[in-house]
């Protein structure tokens, strides 16, 4: 037991795991049904630095899944990032939490020096842009999302995915997840069961898969070497399996992002303030 808490139940993560996780800086984009689960779980495992980005306030339709959200929050229209911060601090008061109640494109200051980026956003196009940001700053990217498809008048198929990509591995386009067909279809519609169907148990399962993949990167408890992960959740039968899609789609080194795409496009030392030299 240390000042941070008692992590003895996860000691199998290794003798340095507590410090490693406490040093970790994670950015979560989207603090709704998926991101709120991820924030909570990362706080439990002992991550020390959080950057939470979401432009929205909670509303009544979020209470079916947003972890930490209360009826009072709905009345008060509490920003989702504030709810996330409250949940994290209630578990780990020592954690550093920074929040941005705005679109992630306007808060990229919080992405760049993170160690991992969690994307919990709606839509394929948003995912593509967010993974692009992860590549720009050489970050591991964890994406979760679910969808509900109408089978007939009385039946629906519930499905979801957790995808992890690494800077020198295949991206979501290489893997065959982000396809032009999907991007085009998104222009017309998204889901067949109303706008962005979301339920707490699917969000929670996908969030757990993402948190597990993240902890495995930083504090591996078994020998593991894989430069991407794509897990599919068949929600109707509650089965998680590794996607076969990359077997058909993945053709070799990523051609969508290259070394020229790294960093700030117009980086110039002379435009930085004097605070740069203070350590």
């Amino acid at each position: 037991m240390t000042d941070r808490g008692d992590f003895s139940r996860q000691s199998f993560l290794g003798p340095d795991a507590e410090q490693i996780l406490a040093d970790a800086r994670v950015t979560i984009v989207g603090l709704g049904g998926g991101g709120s689960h991820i924030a909570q779980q990362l706080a439990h495992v002992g991550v020390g630095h959080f950057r939470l980005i979401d432009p929205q306030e909670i509303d009544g339709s979020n209470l079916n899944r947003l972890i930490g959200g209360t009826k009072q929050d709905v009345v008060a229209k509490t920003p989702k990032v504030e709810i996330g911060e409250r949940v994290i601090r209630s578990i780990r008061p020592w954690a550093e939490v920074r929040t941005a109640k705005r679109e992630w494109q306007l808060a990229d200051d919080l992405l760049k020096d993170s160690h991992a980026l969690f994307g919990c956003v709606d839509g394929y196009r948003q995912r593509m842009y967010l993974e692009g940001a992860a590549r720009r700053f050489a970050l591991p990217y964890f994406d979760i999302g679910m969808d509900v498809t109408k089978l007939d008048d009385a039946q629906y198929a519930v499905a979801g995915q957790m995808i992890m990509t690494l800077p020198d591995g295949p991206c979501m386009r290489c893997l065959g997840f982000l396809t032009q067909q999907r991007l085009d279809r998104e222009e017309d519609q998204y889901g067949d069961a109303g706008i962005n169907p979301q339920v707490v148990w699917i969000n929670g399962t996908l969030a757990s898969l993402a948190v597990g993949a993240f902890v495995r990167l930083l504090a591996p408890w078994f020998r593991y070497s894989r430069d991407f992960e794509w897990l599919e959740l068949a929600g109707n039968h509650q089965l998680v399996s590794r996607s076969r899609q990359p077997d058909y789609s993945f053709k070799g080194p990523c051609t969508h992002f290259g070394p020229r795409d790294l960093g700030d496009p117009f980086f110039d030392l002379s435009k930085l303030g004097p605070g740069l030299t203070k350590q």
Partner: protein
Amino acid sequence: MRAIFRTTDQFLRDVRQDLVRPHRFAAERVGFISIRAAVTSESLILLAEGYHAVADDDYIDDQTVGAMMGQEAIRKALIVALLQPLGMFHVHMHEHRGRPAYSPTDRREQLKFVPDFFKVRPQMPHGAIVLSHDRAIGRTWLDRDTVINITEFNIIGSQMTIDISRPTGRVDFIA
């Protein structure tokens, strides 16, 4: 200001593999890592984008040091920075495990050539890195005269490393 050097584990494996190759007279090898950069209000992030090995013929036979680059090696590195918006980091390796430290020769020689990169690419940070078999240490110049330590190495891969230098009072931490 936190200076972060971020690269992938595969990239660093390739660099180490090159640096341990024997040379016909030099006791060790050196090279350059080119970087692009990003900045936040409190972090400067140095993103490794390419490795430039020093050619066999560009070493000088000087038995007083592990490896001595000739003018041609430095000229080639300067050209890379001249033609592209890249920072250049000299890199070599100490053959041990654990955090490496600069030798007096490292410090003296870095001061001789790193500031020259600002003549061709003043917009980018340049610097020097010393690797061991499993750790790294480095410093970056922000202009010809201002040097700060790299305080964090992020090695991204299926086993990821966040290696943070915490001030210990040891000489090797002082830029």
